[in-house]
Protein backbone atom coordinates (compact mmCIF):
# COMPACT_ATOMS: atom_id res chain seq x y z
CA UNK A 1 0.00 0.00 0.00
CA UNK A 2 1.25 3.45 -0.88
CA UNK A 3 2.13 5.92 1.85
CA UNK A 4 -0.17 8.45 0.15
CA UNK A 5 -3.19 6.19 -0.03
CA UNK A 6 -5.44 7.95 2.49
CA UNK A 7 -8.60 6.94 0.68
CA UNK A 8 -7.91 3.23 0.97
CA UNK A 9 -7.90 3.64 4.74
CA UNK A 10 -11.38 5.09 4.89
CA UNK A 11 -13.94 2.30 4.98
CA UNK A 12 -16.48 4.14 7.11
CA UNK A 13 -19.46 5.25 5.10
CA UNK A 14 -18.39 3.24 2.12
CA UNK A 15 -21.12 1.80 -0.08
CA UNK A 16 -20.62 -1.48 -1.93
CA UNK A 17 -23.11 -1.54 -4.80
CA UNK A 18 -24.88 -4.88 -5.00
CA UNK A 19 -28.20 -6.59 -5.48
CA UNK A 20 -28.66 -8.60 -2.31
CA UNK A 21 -31.95 -8.67 -0.37
CA UNK A 22 -30.33 -6.30 2.13
CA UNK A 23 -29.37 -3.85 -0.63
CA UNK A 24 -32.95 -3.80 -1.87
CA UNK A 25 -34.55 -3.16 1.52
CA UNK A 26 -36.23 0.11 2.41
CA UNK A 27 -33.61 2.41 3.99
CA UNK A 28 -36.02 3.35 6.78
CA UNK A 29 -36.31 -0.29 7.81
CA UNK A 30 -32.51 -0.63 7.70
CA UNK A 31 -32.00 2.51 9.80
CA UNK A 32 -34.49 1.28 12.41
CA UNK A 33 -32.83 -2.14 12.42
CA UNK A 34 -29.42 -0.57 12.92
CA UNK A 35 -30.78 1.61 15.72
CA UNK A 36 -32.40 -1.36 17.49
CA UNK A 37 -29.20 -3.30 17.03
CA UNK A 38 -27.02 -0.59 18.55
CA UNK A 39 -29.37 -0.26 21.54
CA UNK A 40 -29.43 -4.02 22.08
CA UNK A 41 -25.67 -4.47 21.83
CA UNK A 42 -25.04 -1.57 24.21
CA UNK A 43 -27.56 -2.92 26.72
CA UNK A 44 -26.36 -6.53 26.48
CA UNK A 45 -24.72 -7.85 29.66
CA UNK A 46 -24.03 -11.51 28.89
CA UNK A 47 -21.50 -13.31 26.70
CA UNK A 48 -24.25 -15.52 25.33
CA UNK A 49 -26.27 -12.52 24.17
CA UNK A 50 -23.16 -11.01 22.57
CA UNK A 51 -22.41 -14.27 20.76
CA UNK A 52 -25.95 -14.26 19.43
CA UNK A 53 -25.54 -10.65 18.26
CA UNK A 54 -22.21 -11.45 16.55
CA UNK A 55 -23.74 -14.45 14.84
CA UNK A 56 -26.67 -12.37 13.58
CA UNK A 57 -24.36 -9.67 12.18
CA UNK A 58 -22.25 -12.34 10.46
CA UNK A 59 -25.44 -13.72 8.92
CA UNK A 60 -26.32 -10.22 7.74
CA UNK A 61 -22.89 -9.82 6.09
CA UNK A 62 -23.35 -13.18 4.43
CA UNK A 63 -26.80 -12.29 3.10
CA UNK A 64 -25.42 -8.98 1.76
CA UNK A 65 -22.48 -10.88 0.14
CA UNK A 66 -19.88 -8.61 1.74
CA UNK A 67 -16.42 -10.26 1.72
CA UNK A 68 -15.52 -10.98 5.35
CA UNK A 69 -11.96 -9.71 4.87
CA UNK A 70 -13.22 -6.36 3.63
CA UNK A 71 -15.71 -5.97 6.48
CA UNK A 72 -13.02 -6.79 9.05
CA UNK A 73 -10.68 -4.08 7.78
CA UNK A 74 -12.39 -1.37 9.82
CA UNK A 75 -12.40 -3.63 12.88
CA UNK A 76 -8.70 -4.31 12.38
CA UNK A 77 -7.89 -0.59 12.51
CA UNK A 78 -9.82 -0.10 15.76
CA UNK A 79 -8.24 -3.12 17.45
CA UNK A 80 -5.30 -1.37 19.17
CA UNK A 81 -7.68 1.07 20.88
CA UNK A 82 -10.02 -1.74 21.85
CA UNK A 83 -7.16 -3.73 23.34
CA UNK A 84 -6.12 -0.72 25.42
CA UNK A 85 -9.69 -0.19 26.65
CA UNK A 86 -10.02 -3.88 27.51
CA UNK A 87 -6.80 -3.85 29.54
CA UNK A 88 -8.01 -0.81 31.49
CA UNK A 89 -11.35 -2.52 32.11
CA UNK A 90 -9.70 -5.64 33.45
CA UNK A 91 -7.04 -3.98 35.56
CA UNK A 92 -8.30 -0.75 37.05
CA UNK A 93 -12.09 -0.41 36.92
CA UNK A 94 -13.20 -1.02 40.53
CA UNK A 95 -16.80 -1.61 39.46
CA UNK A 96 -15.70 -4.80 37.73
CA UNK A 97 -14.15 -6.39 40.85
CA UNK A 98 -16.68 -9.14 41.16
CA UNK A 99 -16.31 -12.88 41.14
CA UNK A 100 -13.21 -14.82 42.18
CA UNK A 101 -9.89 -12.99 42.54
CA UNK A 102 -7.34 -14.49 40.15
CA UNK A 103 -4.34 -12.23 40.67
CA UNK A 104 -3.52 -9.24 42.82
CA UNK A 105 -0.62 -6.77 42.88
CA UNK A 106 -0.56 -3.25 44.38
CA UNK A 107 -3.73 -1.46 43.11
CA UNK A 108 -4.23 -4.01 40.38
CA UNK A 109 -6.73 -6.78 40.90
CA UNK A 110 -7.76 -9.25 38.23
CA UNK A 111 -11.08 -10.93 38.85
CA UNK A 112 -13.27 -13.18 36.75
CA UNK A 113 -15.82 -10.37 36.67
CA UNK A 114 -13.17 -7.99 35.30
CA UNK A 115 -12.11 -10.43 32.58
CA UNK A 116 -15.73 -10.88 31.57
CA UNK A 117 -16.24 -7.11 31.38
CA UNK A 118 -13.12 -6.72 29.23
CA UNK A 119 -14.17 -9.45 26.82
CA UNK A 120 -17.67 -8.02 26.59
CA UNK A 121 -16.31 -4.56 25.85
CA UNK A 122 -14.18 -5.74 22.93
CA UNK A 123 -16.99 -7.92 21.56
CA UNK A 124 -19.46 -5.04 21.89
CA UNK A 125 -17.32 -2.66 19.85
CA UNK A 126 -16.54 -5.25 17.19
CA UNK A 127 -20.24 -6.04 16.75
CA UNK A 128 -21.12 -2.33 16.71
CA UNK A 129 -18.52 -1.53 14.06
CA UNK A 130 -19.65 -4.46 11.93
CA UNK A 131 -23.35 -3.58 12.28
CA UNK A 132 -22.79 0.06 11.29
CA UNK A 133 -20.53 -1.00 8.42
CA UNK A 134 -23.23 -3.41 7.26
CA UNK A 135 -25.67 -0.52 7.08
CA UNK A 136 -23.30 1.68 5.08
CA UNK A 137 -22.09 -1.16 2.83
CA UNK A 138 -25.63 -1.94 1.73
CA UNK A 139 -27.15 1.56 1.67
CA UNK A 140 -26.06 4.38 -0.63
CA UNK A 141 -25.84 7.82 0.97
CA UNK A 142 -28.80 9.01 -1.11
CA UNK A 143 -31.02 6.25 0.25
CA UNK A 144 -29.69 6.79 3.72
CA UNK A 145 -30.52 10.48 3.55
CA UNK A 146 -34.04 9.87 2.25
CA UNK A 147 -34.65 7.29 4.95
CA UNK A 148 -33.36 9.57 7.67
CA UNK A 149 -35.47 12.46 6.44
CA UNK A 150 -38.61 10.32 6.45
CA UNK A 151 -37.91 9.02 9.93
CA UNK A 152 -37.32 12.53 11.27
CA UNK A 153 -40.36 14.00 9.58
CA UNK A 154 -42.79 13.42 12.49
CA UNK A 155 -40.48 15.58 14.61
CA UNK A 156 -40.92 18.51 12.25
CA UNK A 157 -43.99 19.59 14.20
CA UNK A 158 -41.69 20.15 17.16
CA UNK A 159 -39.65 22.55 15.03
CA UNK A 160 -36.94 20.08 14.00
CA UNK A 161 -35.67 20.85 10.46
CA UNK A 162 -35.74 17.26 9.19
CA UNK A 163 -34.66 17.95 5.63
CA UNK A 164 -31.81 20.26 6.59
CA UNK A 165 -30.54 17.80 9.19
CA UNK A 166 -30.57 14.93 6.71
CA UNK A 167 -28.84 17.09 4.11
CA UNK A 168 -26.13 18.15 6.55
CA UNK A 169 -25.56 14.54 7.51
CA UNK A 170 -25.39 13.52 3.86
CA UNK A 171 -22.88 16.24 2.90
CA UNK A 172 -20.72 15.45 5.92
CA UNK A 173 -20.64 11.76 4.99
CA UNK A 174 -19.77 12.51 1.38
CA UNK A 175 -16.98 14.86 2.37
CA UNK A 176 -14.95 12.18 4.13
CA UNK A 177 -13.59 10.50 0.98
CA UNK A 178 -13.18 13.91 -0.67
CA UNK A 179 -11.07 15.13 2.23
CA UNK A 180 -8.99 11.96 2.02
CA UNK A 181 -8.37 12.56 -1.69
CA UNK A 182 -7.51 16.19 -1.03
CA UNK A 183 -5.04 15.22 1.70
CA UNK A 184 -3.45 12.75 -0.71
CA UNK A 185 -3.09 15.44 -3.37
CA UNK A 186 -1.55 17.93 -0.93
CA UNK A 187 0.85 15.37 0.49
CA UNK A 188 1.97 14.47 -3.02
CA UNK A 189 2.34 18.13 -3.99
CA UNK A 190 4.53 18.80 -0.97
CA UNK A 191 6.54 15.59 -1.35
CA UNK A 192 7.16 16.35 -5.03
CA UNK A 193 8.83 19.56 -4.01
CA UNK A 194 11.13 18.13 -1.41
CA UNK A 195 8.71 18.05 1.50
CA UNK A 196 9.24 15.28 3.99
CA UNK A 197 6.57 12.74 3.55
CA UNK A 198 6.61 9.01 3.92
CA UNK A 199 10.04 7.52 3.41
CA UNK A 200 11.62 4.70 5.29
CA UNK A 201 11.85 6.24 8.75
CA UNK A 202 9.15 7.85 10.83
CA UNK A 203 7.87 7.35 14.35
CA UNK A 204 4.59 8.70 15.67
CA UNK A 205 5.92 12.21 16.36
CA UNK A 206 7.48 12.43 12.92
CA UNK A 207 4.21 11.40 11.34
CA UNK A 208 2.34 14.15 13.18
CA UNK A 209 5.00 16.65 12.10
CA UNK A 210 4.50 15.54 8.51
CA UNK A 211 0.73 15.88 8.76
CA UNK A 212 0.72 19.40 10.25
CA UNK A 213 1.62 21.32 7.06
CA UNK A 214 -1.34 19.60 5.38
CA UNK A 215 -3.91 20.92 7.82
CA UNK A 216 -4.15 24.59 6.87
CA UNK A 217 -4.41 24.04 3.09
CA UNK A 218 -6.80 21.15 3.72
CA UNK A 219 -9.04 23.39 5.82
CA UNK A 220 -8.95 26.22 3.29
CA UNK A 221 -9.72 23.79 0.50
CA UNK A 222 -12.73 22.43 2.40
CA UNK A 223 -14.09 25.95 2.92
CA UNK A 224 -13.66 26.76 -0.75
CA UNK A 225 -15.41 23.55 -1.72
CA UNK A 226 -18.30 24.31 0.64
CA UNK A 227 -18.69 27.71 -1.00
CA UNK A 228 -18.73 26.16 -4.46
CA UNK A 229 -21.25 23.55 -3.36
CA UNK A 230 -23.60 26.19 -1.91
CA UNK A 231 -23.30 28.21 -5.10
CA UNK A 232 -23.99 25.15 -7.27
CA UNK A 233 -27.06 24.25 -5.22
CA UNK A 234 -28.45 27.78 -5.34
CA UNK A 235 -27.74 27.99 -9.06
CA UNK A 236 -30.03 25.02 -9.45
CA UNK A 237 -32.84 26.57 -7.48
CA UNK A 238 -32.27 25.15 -4.01
CA UNK A 239 -34.13 27.15 -1.37
CA UNK A 240 -34.33 24.70 1.52
CA UNK A 241 -36.65 21.87 2.41
CA UNK A 242 -40.03 23.63 2.37
CA UNK A 243 -42.30 22.41 -0.42
CA UNK A 244 -39.63 20.12 -1.82
CA UNK A 245 -40.90 16.90 -3.39
CA UNK A 246 -38.99 13.62 -3.42
CA UNK A 247 -37.67 11.93 -6.49
CA UNK A 248 -37.49 8.56 -4.78
CA UNK A 249 -40.75 7.41 -3.25
CA UNK A 250 -39.98 5.04 -0.40
CA UNK A 251 -42.31 2.10 0.08
CA UNK A 252 -42.13 -0.42 2.88
CA UNK A 253 -42.86 -3.87 1.49
CA UNK A 254 -43.87 -6.94 3.46
CA UNK A 255 -40.29 -8.25 3.30
CA UNK A 256 -39.12 -5.07 5.05
CA UNK A 257 -41.64 -5.56 7.89
CA UNK A 258 -40.66 -9.21 8.27
CA UNK A 259 -36.95 -8.36 8.44
CA UNK A 260 -37.59 -5.52 10.89
CA UNK A 261 -39.66 -7.79 13.14
CA UNK A 262 -36.97 -10.49 12.96
CA UNK A 263 -34.20 -8.08 13.95
CA UNK A 264 -36.28 -6.57 16.77
CA UNK A 265 -36.92 -10.09 18.05
CA UNK A 266 -33.23 -10.98 18.01
CA UNK A 267 -32.41 -7.64 19.64
CA UNK A 268 -34.77 -8.35 22.53
CA UNK A 269 -33.26 -11.83 22.86
CA UNK A 270 -29.74 -10.36 22.91
CA UNK A 271 -30.68 -8.10 25.82
CA UNK A 272 -32.64 -10.73 27.79
CA UNK A 273 -30.43 -13.86 27.67
Amino acid at each position, binding site marked *: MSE*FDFLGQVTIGQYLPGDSPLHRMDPRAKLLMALAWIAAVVACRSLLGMALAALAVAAGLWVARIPARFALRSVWRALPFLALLAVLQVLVMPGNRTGAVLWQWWIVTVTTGGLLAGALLVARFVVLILAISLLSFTTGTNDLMHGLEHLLRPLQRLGLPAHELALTFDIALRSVPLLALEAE*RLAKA*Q*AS*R*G*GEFGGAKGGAIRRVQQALPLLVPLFLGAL*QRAERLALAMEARGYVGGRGRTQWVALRMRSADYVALALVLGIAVAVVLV
Partner: protein
Amino acid sequence: MSELLIDVRGLRHTYMPGTPFASIALDGVDFRLESGETVGVVGSTGAGKSTLLQHLNGLYRPQEGEVHVLGRDLRDPGQDLREVRRSVGLVFQRPEQQIFSQYVGDDVAYGPRLLGLAGEALRERVRWAMDLVGLGFLDYKDRLTWTLSGGEQRKAALAGVLALQPRVLILDEPTAGLDPQARLGLLDDLRRLRAEGLALVVASHNMEDIALLADRLYVLQGGRVALEGPARQVLSQGERLRALGLDAPPVVNLLQALRDLGVSVGGDSLTLDEAEEALAAWLDGRRSP
Protein backbone atom coordinates in the same frame (compact mmCIF):
# COMPACT_ATOMS: atom_id res chain seq x y z
CA MET B 1 26.62 11.44 -24.77
CA SER B 2 23.17 10.48 -23.72
CA GLU B 3 22.59 8.93 -20.35
CA LEU B 4 19.70 6.72 -19.27
CA LEU B 5 17.82 8.73 -16.63
CA ILE B 6 14.72 6.65 -16.08
CA ASP B 7 14.31 2.95 -16.75
CA VAL B 8 10.99 1.23 -16.06
CA ARG B 9 10.47 -2.47 -16.70
CA GLY B 10 7.33 -4.59 -16.41
CA LEU B 11 5.65 -2.12 -14.08
CA ARG B 12 2.27 -3.12 -12.70
CA HIS B 13 0.05 -1.11 -10.38
CA THR B 14 -3.34 -1.91 -8.85
CA TYR B 15 -5.42 0.66 -7.01
CA MET B 16 -7.03 -0.42 -3.73
CA PRO B 17 -5.71 -3.97 -3.98
CA GLY B 18 -7.55 -6.60 -1.97
CA THR B 19 -10.85 -4.73 -1.97
CA PRO B 20 -13.91 -5.01 -4.21
CA PHE B 21 -12.76 -1.69 -5.72
CA ALA B 22 -9.42 -3.02 -6.95
CA SER B 23 -8.61 -1.80 -10.43
CA ILE B 24 -5.51 -2.40 -12.53
CA ALA B 25 -4.00 0.88 -13.71
CA LEU B 26 -0.69 -0.39 -15.12
CA ASP B 27 -0.29 -3.87 -16.52
CA GLY B 28 3.33 -4.41 -17.46
CA VAL B 29 4.77 -1.13 -18.76
CA ASP B 30 8.30 -0.58 -20.09
CA PHE B 31 9.49 3.02 -20.30
CA ARG B 32 12.84 4.74 -20.83
CA LEU B 33 13.96 8.34 -20.70
CA GLU B 34 17.38 9.49 -21.82
CA SER B 35 19.05 12.79 -21.02
CA GLY B 36 18.10 15.70 -23.26
CA GLU B 37 15.13 14.05 -24.90
CA THR B 38 11.43 14.86 -24.66
CA VAL B 39 9.16 11.87 -24.38
CA GLY B 40 5.40 12.07 -24.87
CA VAL B 41 2.98 9.75 -23.10
CA VAL B 42 -0.40 9.68 -24.79
CA GLY B 43 -3.51 7.62 -24.27
CA SER B 44 -7.21 8.08 -23.72
CA THR B 45 -8.56 8.88 -20.25
CA GLY B 46 -7.93 6.05 -17.82
CA ALA B 47 -5.10 4.53 -19.87
CA GLY B 48 -2.71 4.84 -16.93
CA LYS B 49 -0.77 7.99 -17.86
CA SER B 50 -1.00 9.72 -14.48
CA THR B 51 -0.22 6.53 -12.58
CA LEU B 52 2.91 5.96 -14.67
CA LEU B 53 4.08 9.54 -14.16
CA GLN B 54 3.69 9.30 -10.39
CA HIS B 55 6.03 6.32 -10.41
CA LEU B 56 8.72 8.31 -12.19
CA ASN B 57 9.38 10.61 -9.24
CA GLY B 58 8.83 8.11 -6.49
CA LEU B 59 5.35 9.10 -5.36
CA TYR B 60 4.44 5.48 -5.90
CA ARG B 61 6.78 2.60 -5.31
CA PRO B 62 6.57 -0.24 -7.79
CA GLN B 63 4.19 -2.97 -6.63
CA GLU B 64 5.52 -5.26 -9.34
CA GLY B 65 8.28 -4.62 -11.85
CA GLU B 66 11.31 -2.33 -11.70
CA VAL B 67 11.73 1.44 -11.61
CA HIS B 68 15.22 2.92 -11.77
CA VAL B 69 15.50 6.70 -11.54
CA LEU B 70 18.93 8.34 -11.88
CA GLY B 71 20.54 5.06 -10.97
CA ARG B 72 18.43 4.48 -7.87
CA ASP B 73 16.35 1.35 -7.53
CA LEU B 74 12.96 2.41 -6.21
CA ARG B 75 12.12 -1.13 -5.14
CA ASP B 76 14.58 -0.75 -2.29
CA PRO B 77 12.46 0.22 0.75
CA GLY B 78 15.44 1.93 2.39
CA GLN B 79 15.92 4.26 -0.56
CA ASP B 80 15.58 7.93 0.39
CA LEU B 81 13.01 9.11 -2.10
CA ARG B 82 13.43 12.82 -1.35
CA GLU B 83 16.49 13.02 -3.59
CA VAL B 84 14.54 11.36 -6.42
CA ARG B 85 11.58 13.69 -5.98
CA ARG B 86 13.82 16.75 -6.08
CA SER B 87 15.71 15.72 -9.20
CA VAL B 88 12.57 14.69 -11.04
CA GLY B 89 10.09 17.56 -10.92
CA LEU B 90 6.44 16.67 -11.39
CA VAL B 91 3.85 19.22 -12.46
CA PHE B 92 0.43 17.81 -11.67
CA GLN B 93 -2.52 17.32 -13.95
CA ARG B 94 -4.16 20.40 -12.52
CA PRO B 95 -1.13 22.42 -11.46
CA GLU B 96 -3.32 25.09 -9.86
CA GLN B 97 -4.14 22.42 -7.26
CA GLN B 98 -0.46 21.95 -6.63
CA ILE B 99 -0.15 25.39 -5.08
CA PHE B 100 -0.64 25.34 -1.33
CA SER B 101 0.82 28.58 0.02
CA GLN B 102 -0.98 31.88 0.29
CA TYR B 103 1.50 34.03 -1.64
CA VAL B 104 3.09 33.22 -4.97
CA GLY B 105 6.61 33.99 -3.74
CA ASP B 106 6.21 31.71 -0.71
CA ASP B 107 4.89 28.90 -2.86
CA VAL B 108 7.80 29.04 -5.29
CA ALA B 109 10.20 29.26 -2.33
CA TYR B 110 8.81 26.11 -0.66
CA GLY B 111 11.12 23.68 -2.44
CA PRO B 112 14.40 25.66 -2.37
CA ARG B 113 13.84 26.52 1.30
CA LEU B 114 13.70 22.80 2.08
CA LEU B 115 16.91 22.40 0.07
CA GLY B 116 18.51 24.66 2.67
CA LEU B 117 18.63 27.90 0.70
CA ALA B 118 18.04 31.07 2.71
CA GLY B 119 18.36 34.83 2.48
CA GLU B 120 19.74 36.25 -0.73
CA ALA B 121 20.38 32.83 -2.31
CA LEU B 122 16.75 31.84 -1.76
CA ARG B 123 15.54 35.16 -3.17
CA GLU B 124 17.73 34.74 -6.22
CA ARG B 125 16.53 31.20 -6.84
CA VAL B 126 12.87 32.25 -6.62
CA ARG B 127 13.52 35.22 -8.92
CA TRP B 128 15.28 32.93 -11.40
CA ALA B 129 12.43 30.38 -11.45
CA MET B 130 9.71 33.01 -11.77
CA ASP B 131 11.53 34.84 -14.55
CA LEU B 132 11.99 31.55 -16.37
CA VAL B 133 8.22 31.10 -16.71
CA GLY B 134 7.56 34.78 -17.32
CA LEU B 135 6.06 35.75 -13.97
CA GLY B 136 7.87 38.98 -13.04
CA PHE B 137 9.38 38.50 -9.57
CA LEU B 138 8.49 41.95 -8.20
CA ASP B 139 5.04 42.00 -9.77
CA TYR B 140 3.97 38.57 -8.64
CA LYS B 141 5.79 37.51 -5.49
CA ASP B 142 3.28 39.15 -3.12
CA ARG B 143 0.16 38.22 -5.05
CA LEU B 144 -2.35 35.89 -3.41
CA THR B 145 -2.14 32.55 -5.21
CA TRP B 146 -5.88 32.06 -5.54
CA THR B 147 -6.37 35.42 -7.28
CA LEU B 148 -4.17 34.38 -10.22
CA SER B 149 -5.74 33.47 -13.55
CA GLY B 150 -5.65 29.85 -14.72
CA GLY B 151 -2.63 30.45 -16.95
CA GLU B 152 -0.74 32.32 -14.24
CA GLN B 153 -1.44 29.53 -11.74
CA ARG B 154 0.09 27.00 -14.15
CA LYS B 155 3.13 29.19 -14.48
CA ALA B 156 3.40 29.59 -10.72
CA ALA B 157 3.18 25.82 -10.22
CA LEU B 158 5.79 25.28 -12.94
CA ALA B 159 8.05 27.85 -11.28
CA GLY B 160 7.64 26.07 -7.94
CA VAL B 161 8.95 22.86 -9.49
CA LEU B 162 11.68 24.52 -11.55
CA ALA B 163 12.97 26.28 -8.42
CA LEU B 164 14.28 22.87 -7.34
CA GLN B 165 16.44 22.84 -10.50
CA PRO B 166 15.42 19.30 -11.42
CA ARG B 167 17.18 17.24 -14.09
CA VAL B 168 13.92 15.84 -15.40
CA LEU B 169 10.62 17.68 -15.68
CA ILE B 170 7.40 15.69 -15.85
CA LEU B 171 4.19 17.38 -16.92
CA ASP B 172 0.74 15.82 -16.72
CA GLU B 173 -1.66 17.43 -19.22
CA PRO B 174 0.15 20.78 -19.08
CA THR B 175 -2.15 22.69 -21.44
CA ALA B 176 -5.58 21.32 -20.51
CA GLY B 177 -8.08 24.11 -19.87
CA LEU B 178 -5.79 26.98 -20.92
CA ASP B 179 -6.85 29.67 -23.37
CA PRO B 180 -4.99 29.64 -26.72
CA GLN B 181 -2.59 32.44 -25.79
CA ALA B 182 -1.68 30.89 -22.44
CA ARG B 183 -1.27 27.50 -24.10
CA LEU B 184 1.17 28.81 -26.71
CA GLY B 185 3.04 30.70 -24.00
CA LEU B 186 3.43 27.56 -21.93
CA LEU B 187 4.53 25.49 -24.93
CA ASP B 188 7.16 28.16 -25.66
CA ASP B 189 8.39 27.94 -22.08
CA LEU B 190 8.69 24.17 -22.35
CA ARG B 191 10.59 24.33 -25.64
CA ARG B 192 12.99 26.81 -24.07
CA LEU B 193 13.57 24.47 -21.13
CA ARG B 194 14.16 21.59 -23.53
CA ALA B 195 16.70 23.66 -25.43
CA GLU B 196 18.52 24.25 -22.15
CA GLY B 197 19.01 20.50 -21.81
CA LEU B 198 16.22 19.54 -19.42
CA ALA B 199 14.74 16.12 -20.12
CA LEU B 200 10.94 16.30 -20.39
CA VAL B 201 8.14 13.79 -20.05
CA VAL B 202 4.80 15.17 -21.24
CA ALA B 203 1.53 13.32 -20.87
CA SER B 204 -1.33 14.66 -22.91
CA HIS B 205 -4.18 13.73 -25.14
CA ASN B 206 -3.77 16.90 -27.12
CA MET B 207 -1.94 15.46 -30.14
CA GLU B 208 -0.99 18.91 -31.41
CA ASP B 209 0.92 19.69 -28.23
CA ILE B 210 2.62 16.33 -28.44
CA ALA B 211 3.54 16.95 -32.08
CA LEU B 212 5.09 20.29 -31.12
CA LEU B 213 7.13 18.94 -28.22
CA ALA B 214 7.95 15.24 -28.24
CA ASP B 215 10.87 13.40 -29.82
CA ARG B 216 9.61 9.98 -28.87
CA LEU B 217 6.17 8.66 -27.92
CA TYR B 218 4.56 5.99 -25.80
CA VAL B 219 0.89 5.28 -26.47
CA LEU B 220 -0.84 3.69 -23.49
CA GLN B 221 -4.02 1.68 -23.70
CA GLY B 222 -5.59 -0.11 -20.75
CA GLY B 223 -2.39 0.04 -18.71
CA ARG B 224 -0.14 -1.33 -21.47
CA VAL B 225 2.13 0.25 -24.05
CA ALA B 226 0.16 -0.19 -27.27
CA LEU B 227 2.54 1.73 -29.54
CA GLU B 228 5.93 3.36 -29.19
CA GLY B 229 8.58 4.96 -31.34
CA PRO B 230 9.78 8.27 -32.77
CA ALA B 231 6.98 10.85 -32.57
CA ARG B 232 6.88 11.34 -36.35
CA GLN B 233 6.44 7.66 -36.99
CA VAL B 234 3.76 7.13 -34.34
CA LEU B 235 1.77 10.25 -35.15
CA SER B 236 1.53 9.41 -38.84
CA GLN B 237 -0.44 6.23 -38.06
CA GLY B 238 -3.87 7.88 -38.03
CA GLU B 239 -5.86 4.65 -38.34
CA ARG B 240 -4.02 2.93 -35.52
CA LEU B 241 -4.31 5.96 -33.22
CA ARG B 242 -8.04 6.26 -33.85
CA ALA B 243 -8.44 2.60 -32.94
CA LEU B 244 -6.78 3.44 -29.61
CA GLY B 245 -9.27 6.21 -28.85
CA LEU B 246 -6.89 8.97 -30.02
CA ASP B 247 -6.31 10.79 -33.28
CA ALA B 248 -3.42 12.06 -35.37
CA PRO B 249 -2.73 15.80 -35.16
CA PRO B 250 -5.10 17.83 -37.41
CA VAL B 251 -2.25 18.69 -39.78
CA VAL B 252 -1.50 15.02 -40.42
CA ASN B 253 -5.18 14.34 -41.12
CA LEU B 254 -5.42 17.36 -43.43
CA LEU B 255 -2.43 16.30 -45.52
CA GLN B 256 -3.77 12.76 -45.67
CA ALA B 257 -7.11 14.11 -46.92
CA LEU B 258 -5.27 16.12 -49.61
CA ARG B 259 -3.32 13.02 -50.64
CA ASP B 260 -6.60 11.10 -50.89
CA LEU B 261 -7.78 13.81 -53.28
CA GLY B 262 -4.77 13.18 -55.47
CA VAL B 263 -2.53 16.01 -54.25
CA SER B 264 0.92 14.46 -54.16
CA VAL B 265 2.17 16.45 -51.18
CA GLY B 266 5.07 14.59 -49.63
CA GLY B 267 6.80 14.57 -46.32
CA ASP B 268 5.68 13.64 -42.86
CA SER B 269 4.71 17.08 -41.56
CA LEU B 270 3.39 17.27 -38.01
CA THR B 271 3.05 21.01 -37.48
CA LEU B 272 1.50 23.85 -39.43
CA ASP B 273 4.91 25.29 -40.31
CA GLU B 274 6.11 22.00 -41.75
CA ALA B 275 2.86 21.54 -43.68
CA GLU B 276 3.23 25.04 -45.11
CA GLU B 277 6.67 24.18 -46.42
CA ALA B 278 5.51 20.88 -47.87
CA LEU B 279 2.58 22.52 -49.64
CA ALA B 280 4.80 25.33 -50.94
CA ALA B 281 7.18 22.74 -52.34
CA TRP B 282 4.27 20.96 -54.02
CA LEU B 283 3.00 24.23 -55.53
CA ASP B 284 6.49 25.08 -56.81
CA GLY B 285 6.70 21.63 -58.36
CA ARG B 286 3.43 22.26 -60.23
CA ARG B 287 4.45 25.65 -61.53
CA SER B 288 7.72 24.49 -63.02
CA PRO B 289 7.26 20.97 -64.32
